[in-house]
């Protein structure tokens, strides 16, 4: 915190507040994702609880200054627990008119609006399809507008470096970041460190960025622009070491952990696809952990190479998003038939078809459950927060290896790119994942099962005496030979189903957060966890009797779920789809659960949930 300390105390007022929501918005080329993640890193290091929501366009780089080119990054940070990136924004940084137009609706009345006034020339306005200049036409009067010549001021600060105007302009996001650090009384040190590391080979660029950052900070200091600055004390999180992780990073770490805990080589067969590609990028760096990544020619090869790697004894994994999952389904049937352990990650995105590639959605649940020919049951897990992705990855591997089954993990674009604090576990506290390979020719039969788990033995090529053949045709129970007998087929179909259903005995019961019985049970899954938690809290504070079950295991479901539902008068299932879990719960439990469905490529707002809760409770 040295920088802060060195800075003479500002004359402006300092207010201590509990939390804030800040959004950086600008052109895709303006570096908003970096700006946002630097701010996040800084507040997280300081000890605030955080939740982030990056939101960027599908196009690599839409024309500069246009509406489709706007990129945003939202952060909610707080001295108490944070569940969502926040519905509405306290501070909006808009680097150009297009960013202003696309984001203003979410700024709270009287919220702080920082704009780069240098980008509001006639041409800029036209690109944003604006007919008059909002900085002049009083349309922003209900906000606390801070119109800053960020570009000119940045250039002024960097002039002496002798770099060209373009290079100087590229630093103006750090000018804005400096302003925000001042506004929230934060140290610039973490970002200085990051800049030094990132541009270690380009000292001039490092210098420029650091100067821009300082310039923004000093600008506030000198001009007393804001009158007031804010202090958000550290949150009282569970004790321990923390780190900020995105969902994709957390997944990658989880799989590496499971590989270490099981003593297996991790093999990833994958084909890049938004928003799952980062898992491939992450894992391709961990070669010294024995992690092998294979960038396949398509999703089918990704899936089938994963099956091959599993057959050969690796902890095998494939990662994709909805359209890629659709391509894997035939091969997933083969994984079911051969009963080999592996994990299939689907980072869901908006659909159908190519849909809204960078937007979030939860609409692949039914595909995960049923998207294969014939009866091909697969366990399905879903992560609820970025950090939870780590634990879900470990759990998926545990189930896959223990039961010799493919396991599907569902996350989504919101979890994948959003980040939150992850409490770093002690390695010893993570249970080992025992694996045993068959080696004894005397007792080996390819489809002889463990009576407890119904798992078949894993006999990898290279093991003397266990030579055997497997494949996609129906197998004789026990021997695994091809078999088309009617009763054997029925038996095998039922065994495969029973094996998956039996996992219910091996997972925790559903324990509602909040009221253990009452008027309303909310059942959620996946990335809606934060929004639901955030909505339930104030509602319960108003005396309403609400429970919240957030499902990690979607197949099989916790064995007590039916019983839990009976303890409440109503059941609400909020989903970012047209009601997929709802459908499953209705079919399985014949419960007249009610859906709250949003299909906008965006998470729920806390408020949307609260409105629905109140509607259902008739208050």
């Amino acid at each position, binding site marked *: 915190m040295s920088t802060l300390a060195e800075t003479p105390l500002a004359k402006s007022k300092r207010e201590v507040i509990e939390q804030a929501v800040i959004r950086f918005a600008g052109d895709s080329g303006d570096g908003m994702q970096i700006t946002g993640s630097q701010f996040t890193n800084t507040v997280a290091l300081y000890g605030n609880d955080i939740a982030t929501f990056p939101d960027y366009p599908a196009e690599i780089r839409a024309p500069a200054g246009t509406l489709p080119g706007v990129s945003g990054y939202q952060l909610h940070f707080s001295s108490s627990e944070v569940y969502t990136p926040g519905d509405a924004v306290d501070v909006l940084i808009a680097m150009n008119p297009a960013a202003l137009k696309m984001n203003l609706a979410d700024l709270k009345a009287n919220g702080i609006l920082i704009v780069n006034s240098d980008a509001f020339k006639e041409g800029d306005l036209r690109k944003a399809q604006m007919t008059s200049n909002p900085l002049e036409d009083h349309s922003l009067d209900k906000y606390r507008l801070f119109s800053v010549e960020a570009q000119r001021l940045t250039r002024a600060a960097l002039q002496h470096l002798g770099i060209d105007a373009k290079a100087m302009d590229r630093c103006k996001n750090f000018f804005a970041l400096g302003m925000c650090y001042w506004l929230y009384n934060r140290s610039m040190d973490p970002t200085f460190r990051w800049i030094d590391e990132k541009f270690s080979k380009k000292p001039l660029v490092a210098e420029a960025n650091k100067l821009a950052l300082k310039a923004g900070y000093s600008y506030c200091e000198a001009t007393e622009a804001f009158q007031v600055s804010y202090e958000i004390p550290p949150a009282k999180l569970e004790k321990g070491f923390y780190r900020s992780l995105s969902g994709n990073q957390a997944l990658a770490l989880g799989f590496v952990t499971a590989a270490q805990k099981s003593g297996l080589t991790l093999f990833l067969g994958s084909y890049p696809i938004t928003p799952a590609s980062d898992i491939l990028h992450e894992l391709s760096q961990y070669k010294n952990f024995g992690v092998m990544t294979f960038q*396949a020619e398509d999703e089918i090869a990704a899936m089938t190479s994963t099956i*091959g790697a599993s057959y050969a004894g690796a902890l095998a994994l494939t990662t994709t998003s909805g359209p890629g999952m659709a391509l894997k389904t035939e*091969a997933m049937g*083969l994984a079911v038939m051969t009963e080999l352990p592996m994990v299939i990650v689907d980072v869901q995105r908006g659909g159908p078809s190519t849909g809204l590639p960078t937007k979030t959605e939860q609409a692949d649940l039914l595909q995960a459950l049923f998207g294969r020919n014939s009866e091909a049951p697969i366990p399905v897990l879903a992560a609820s927060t970025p950090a939870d992705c780590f634990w879900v990855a470990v759990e998926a591997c545990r189930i896959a290896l223990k039961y010799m089954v493919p396991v599907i993990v569902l996350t989504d674009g919101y979890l994948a790119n959003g980040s939150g604090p992850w409490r770093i576990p002690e390695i010893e506290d993570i249970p080992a994942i025992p694996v045993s390979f068959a080696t004894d020719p005397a007792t080996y039969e390819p489809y002889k099962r463990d009576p407890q788990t119904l798992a078949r033995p894993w006999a990898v090529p290279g093991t003397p005496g266990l030579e055997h053949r497997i494949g996609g045709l129906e197998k004789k129970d026990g021997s695994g030979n091809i078999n088309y007998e009617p009763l054997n087929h029925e038996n095998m179909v039922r065994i495969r189903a029973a094996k998956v259903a039996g996992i219910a005995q091996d997972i925790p019961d559903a324990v509602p957060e909040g009221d253990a019985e009452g008027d309303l049970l909310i059942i959620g899954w996946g990335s809606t966890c934060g929004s639901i938690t955030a909505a339930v809290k104030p509602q319960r504070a108003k005396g309403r009797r609400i429970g919240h079950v957030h499902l990690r295991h979607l197949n099989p479901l916790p064995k007590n779920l039916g019983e839990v539902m009976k303890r409440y008068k109503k059941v609400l299932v909020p989903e970012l789809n047209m009601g997929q879990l709802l459908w499953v719960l209705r079919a399985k439990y014949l419960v007249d659960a009610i859906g709250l469905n949003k299909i906008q490529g965006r998470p729920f707002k806390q408020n949307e949930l609260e409105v629905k809760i109140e509607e259902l409770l008739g208050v």
Partner: protein
Amino acid sequence: MTTAALPQLTKKDFQTDQEVRWCPGCGDYAILSAVQSVFPELGIPREKFVVVSGIGCSSRFPYYMNTYGFHSIHGRAPAVATGIKAVRPDLDVWVATGDGDALAIGGNHTIHMLRRNVGIKVLLFNNRIYGLTKGQYSPTSEYHKVTKSTPYGSPDRPFNPISLAIGSEATFVARSVDVFQAHLKDTLKHAAVHRGSAFIEILQNCNIFNNGAWEGITEKDARSEHVIQLEHGKPLVFGKNRDKGIRRLADGDIEVVPLGDKYTEKDLIVHDAHHPRASYAFLLSHMEHRPGFPTPIGVLRAWDDLPRYEDVMNDQLKEVTAKKGRGDLAKLFRAGDTWEVK
């Protein structure tokens, strides 16, 4: 296990107790027999063999080989095999596939496996028909062929599997014939010692749905007139009386010449299977389409100077580990900025 300790394996060791379910007279039997004869001679323990297949008559192959076997799904054997090879480069992985399996639905995996030079040996049973699904034309069927799905003749020009493999940067390309047992075994042995991807097209007769597809090549008389047997370092001679040869023209093209007064073997091209450049093999692969030219069998190309895919992958793991040290999970967890809550 050291090679010295290897028990002497025999053909019988590679036979399974499964009833062989091919039509009587099918060319697949001959291929099975050749492979079962060659495997014991390779000095590799039986448990190190993995035979992977897709779907088709030919793809039932693994069931009859007493090795590790994976009868996967239609077209995907090269990808399944790539996963196996990546993780276990020590295994000897063979793919058994058909013209439909490898070149129709599986075309993409085949060409990508070849370009990557994954150390897999591919046995492509080319019967120019979909056998298992009872007689539709395949990507190697002749133009205008009348089949179940093309009662008025197929509108597709076929692939030449050898040319396609060469266009896909294959490092080993060969052709043999089901009924030429000695030649087939010899070709398999060449493939077996190739470290990179080996692609072997085996002309195979489907006596039920495409009987006689290769008659022009396998018929006793036809054989020597219409087939040229390529041997590294030997001139390109063919004909019942070894009275014809293939000569280079000034423009780079080739011609068939009679041997005798005007031309002797000295004027002919000497086969160079190990030529670093693929264009020579490509030229050979296309000659069968020209009137008067024979169909080449044997090893067209065997250029083994390139690293295998799985080795590059595994070497990277070793190199990075050597450089960075074995991954430490606790350190990885704490990488980047962390903070403590007390």
